């Protein structure tokens, strides 16, 4: 565009220029906050100054039309100031409490509901899916939309929860996002070994890298019709797709056998208990676009059971650890299968190496 010397390595704009005046003034000097109503909180500074935050949902995938809409709303209600959150909501940063309700009304009109603060369900951290990624075993945005439509009352504050409940979605085992440490993780899975295009392998792939990429050593060099390619020992493949990441000629996608698994009980905060991984709840559900009813039902069931049984502040994983996994499977009605038992590197660590077992036949929480 311009013929001036090319600028590189300038880094991001300095954040300070984007901070509202009340933040600049009270930076690092906040004293406390309170949730005023669903999606709205006020932070109070030592100086007595107040900052009102209105948090609205976004689908993360935003058109520039919407960016302009948000800019307009910010100009109108929050002195042109807004931010996005680490879970892809948008937050308007208001100084004048009188602007809160009009802003909420206008956001609602445009389809961006307000909520997600406190012991609630916030936005689903998610990924690209069929919108942009080559690896996806499912769409991302469609599943997120379907699930959040169902869980919306927990976002908007019309239904409450014992503690925060973080849902995440990833469309393949690369797990872009903190899927592996979420209260409920929805994970796209391939369940079929890669289909090798022997013609393309020598052109597109470095065979040693492909062999090295496989966590289970299922990929071996092979000669096919006189040319060097690879073969996959089918029984050793657990469909991670890592070979495909390094070798486009090993396609994973499979319309009938790609699907979704559901994992529960992870967290990242250090509050009370240490961060933990999510654990397998439902091994496989089919891809059923556009609304993935099986996935929605399964997630909804998990949320309902958790909401009914957990104690105040208890995250999903903390609740399950208190009542024990056998009881979790009983309460949720999810069948326990051999797939639930880990069989990878650290498998033994998940075995119950004691007699600490709830023996009662009719165990209830």
């Amino acid at each position, binding site marked *: *565009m*311009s013929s001036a010397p090319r600028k*590189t*390595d*300038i*880094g*991001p*704009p*300095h*954040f300070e220029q*984007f*901070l509202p005046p009340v933040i600049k003034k009270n*930076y*690092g000097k*906040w004293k406390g906050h309170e949730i005023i109503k669903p999606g709205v909180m006020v932070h109070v500074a030592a100086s007595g100054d107040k*900052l009102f*935050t209105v948090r609205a*949902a*976004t*689908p*993360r*995938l935003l*058109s*520039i*039309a919407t*960016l*302009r809409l948000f*800019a307009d709303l910010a100009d109108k209600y929050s002195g*042109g100031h*807004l*931010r*996005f959150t*680490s879970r*892809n909501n948008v937050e308007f*940063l208001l100084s004048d409490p009188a602007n809160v309700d009009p802003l909420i009304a206008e956001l609602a009109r445009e389809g*961006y*509901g307000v909520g997600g603060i406190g012991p609630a369900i916030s936005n689903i951290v998610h990924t690209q899916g*069929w919108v*942009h990624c080559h690896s996806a075993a499912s769409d991302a945005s*469609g599943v997120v*939309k379907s699930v959040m439509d169902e869980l*919306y009352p927990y976002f*908007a504050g019309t239904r409450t929860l014992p503690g925060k409940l973080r849902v995440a979605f990833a469309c393949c085992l*690369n*797990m*872009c996002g903190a899927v*592996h440490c979420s209260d409920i993780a929805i994970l796209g899975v391939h369940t079929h070994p890669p289909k090798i295009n022997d013609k393309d392998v020598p052109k597109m792939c470095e065979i040693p890298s492909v062999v*090295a*990429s496989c966590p289970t050593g299922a990929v071996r060099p092979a000669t096919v019709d006189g040319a060097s390619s690879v073969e996959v020992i089918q029984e050793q493949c657990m469909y991670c797709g*890592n070979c495909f*990441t390094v070798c486009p000629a090993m396609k994973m*996608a499979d319309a*009938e056998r790609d699907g979704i698994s559901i994992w529960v009980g992870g967290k990242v905060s*250090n*509050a009370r208990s240490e*961060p933990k991984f999510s654990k397998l709840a439902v091994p496989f559900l089919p*891809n059923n*676009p556009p609304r993935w009813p099986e996935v929605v039902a399964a997630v909804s069931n998990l949320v309902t059971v958790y909401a009914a049984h957990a104690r*105040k*502040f208890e995250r999903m994983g903390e609740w399950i650890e208190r009542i024990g996994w056998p009881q979790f499977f009983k309460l949720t009605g999810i069948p326990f299968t051999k797939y639930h038992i880990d069989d990878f590197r650290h498998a033994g660590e998940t075995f119950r190496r004691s007699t600490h077992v709830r023996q009662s036949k009719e165990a209830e929480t």
Partner: protein
Amino acid sequence: MSEKKRETPLLDELEKGPWPSFVKELKKEAARPMVQDLLGQLERSYEEKVGHWKHGGLVGVMGYGGGVIGRYSDLGEEFPACAEFHTMRINQPAGWFYTSTALRTIADIWDRHGSGVTNMHGSTGDIILLGTKTQELEPTFAELTEHGFDLGGSGSDMRTPSACVGPARCEWACYDTLGAVYDFTMQFQDELHRPAFPYKYKLKFAGCPNDCVASVARSDMSFIGTWRDEIQVDQEQVKAYAASGAIDVQKDVCDRCPTRCMSWDGKTLAIDDVNCVKCMHCINAMPRALAPGNDRGAAILIGAKAPIVGGALLSSVFVPFIKMEPPYEEIKELIGRIWDIWSEHGKNRERVGEFIQRIGLGNFLEQIGLDPVPEMIVAPRANPYIFYQDDVFAQPGEEA
């Protein structure tokens, strides 16, 4: 074909319901052929239950090795307008703060050069500009830098660091997360833009142990704010919480403290701070009454990652406590030493967390010149397969 509007009955279903609809977002830009074809291809994916993107390709801007993800359709004939559909990762401002002007600037640039579709934001934290052609990459980049924006990371480089909102709005921030993320990002521009590592390296900055950027799960190096002295207690406010009935101080607070180091006699909340592990729970539960101490800094943890290849990892304690003060020289040197040895000895596609487990944390510490401390571990080894070196013979009985 992109000239005539394709029907999208399946996607249209996703315009319904209370949650904001990504389909509506796409349709807002559907006047553009690129988005029209994207909708068409996506509808096809919904029908067929498979994606239609080919494996990425090597595209980018001059002099940079990362920041652009090349993407081509495998239905390019049918949907030519999105046959090329690369994303650009733009380094976000710290804490994702914007003014309306800044947001419009981005919108305008993307209006001129891309699909008009974005992600606000990508999982790593970048602004994702979703979908453009190879020929538009350089012009977009020129306009971005013109307006003060630059690319983020991709490939085997340092990835765009990110931070929680921190002192900008949060009363619990134990250090300046935004200042730090900006400083480190600027310091390591070369490492961010020119992949030269065995694999990606992510930094995330959280102001306190609540870890609102999920750093412990998502970054090769997590800076998590914490403190060393006593929790600040306002006993009157504790009583007020108890009186209000909103909090049962014994059950909701004391009994949920992981080390049970608090006690409550109905009048005074006593904390045995020596046994407090700074988990934040009591502070979260009674924000008006309690606050982190005054001797604040951060714990540095190392090595989180997703499952590929050897299994997922959470970060683990590396420096239990350090003051977080600019210019962060000590930390930058530490990072430099880590990158040196990992770059030299790490295998291709081996994250630093896996590298450390492979060579042994003890050896790793020795090589980067950091003393082992018991805070790094949950428990000492149970396994007796010890690689003894000569130093053990030098100090017989020293422990007695």
